[in-house]
């Protein structure tokens, strides 16, 4: 099972690679929206973890672009960002409905343990879906 992590910060992405290495998942890290689309094309992800604040194209642009491809419409996406969800105000609900987001996690308030727990939950749901 492939997980695509979109994280521009080099140090944090190294930490994720180390923290997730025992989950039995193949981790792919992209630092930009464009690189993420290319990676997703080559290694279809079962889950996407996204930081919204990226260089050049934002995470929001990535979301719309990603969902525009039929094969990626159902792939769960977790936003794991330095931007608190409150900053989106009512737009968040619109975005959630339009794009379909599994969860929005605020980085300073979500530690690795909590993130791993959520990854496990989402990927186990995915495996069940695949079985059926």
């Amino acid at each position, binding site marked *: 099972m492939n997980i695509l992590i979109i994280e521009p*910060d080099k140090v944090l992405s190294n*930490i994720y690679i180390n923290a997730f290495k025992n989950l039995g998942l193949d981790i792919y890290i992209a630092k930009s929206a464009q690189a993420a689309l290319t990676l997703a094309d080559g290694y279809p992800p079962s889950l996407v973890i996204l930081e919204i*604040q*990226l260089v*050049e194209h934002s995470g929001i642009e990535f979301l719309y672009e990603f969902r525009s491809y039929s094969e990626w419409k159902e792939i769960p996406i977790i936003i794991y960002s330095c931007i608190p969800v409150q*900053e989106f105000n009512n737009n968040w609900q619109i975005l959630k409905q339009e794009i379909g987001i599994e969860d929005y996690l605020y980085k300073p308030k979500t530690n690795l343990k909590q993130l791993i727990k959520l990854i496990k939950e989402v990927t186990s749901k995915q495996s069940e879906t695949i079985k059926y």
Partner: protein
Amino acid sequence: MARVLRLENETPIISQQLLLNIAEELKMPLLRIARANESSLFDDQMNLQSSEIIRTSTDNALKLIDNYILGIRLALEDASFIKESVSVSSVLYDAALDLTSLAKINGVELELNIAGKFAPVAVNREALHAALVSLGAALIEAIPAHENIQMKLQLATHRSRYGIVAGVYAQTKQLSEQTLKMGRRLQKTSRQPLLNLSHSNGAGVFVADSILNSMGLKLTSSRHHNLYGIGTILEPVNQMQLIT
């Protein structure tokens, strides 16, 4: 709405927006510290790497705060910041030493290009050093977020027709006057004023800007060989060559 505290003569002293940027920027080193600490608990082998991340991120956060404070003190015209005869090359050398660990944990190769003999400049050494470190740190963190550019940053000096340029250079065209102009304009309204350059709010660039401004200098774009960069132009003081 951003407010600016002013002295009686209307000199801006404390930009709440810059303070807000710094508070936001400090999330990143603190996040790195917290996650590196947590990650070291998963795996004994990570301990050494994590302690390096924790040490460097802490140092970097403290430097950002110190440099911000220095900018404010300069703006308040603190008399202790007198101009002195300074060798630009030696300031760049010291700045490179300060940035080495940060570059290492970000996978950025740091180069120093101070070849050539330049006349000293009259500037406050501590403030120039702080501005270059602040700028360098911001770019070291910004470069790895770009695709298809060399993970190299060069601290360099050269002569131009306007004076001696001291700056920080990389392969990215985003280090341009336009990026700076747009950044300064968007600083009040955007989370990512340097959108094409940095994934963070680039507080370090604005701190460097405020320090240089307070000394009557300017942060500006410049080219060094085939690299793009930002830095400042310093006026050489040839008379001082005799006493250095």
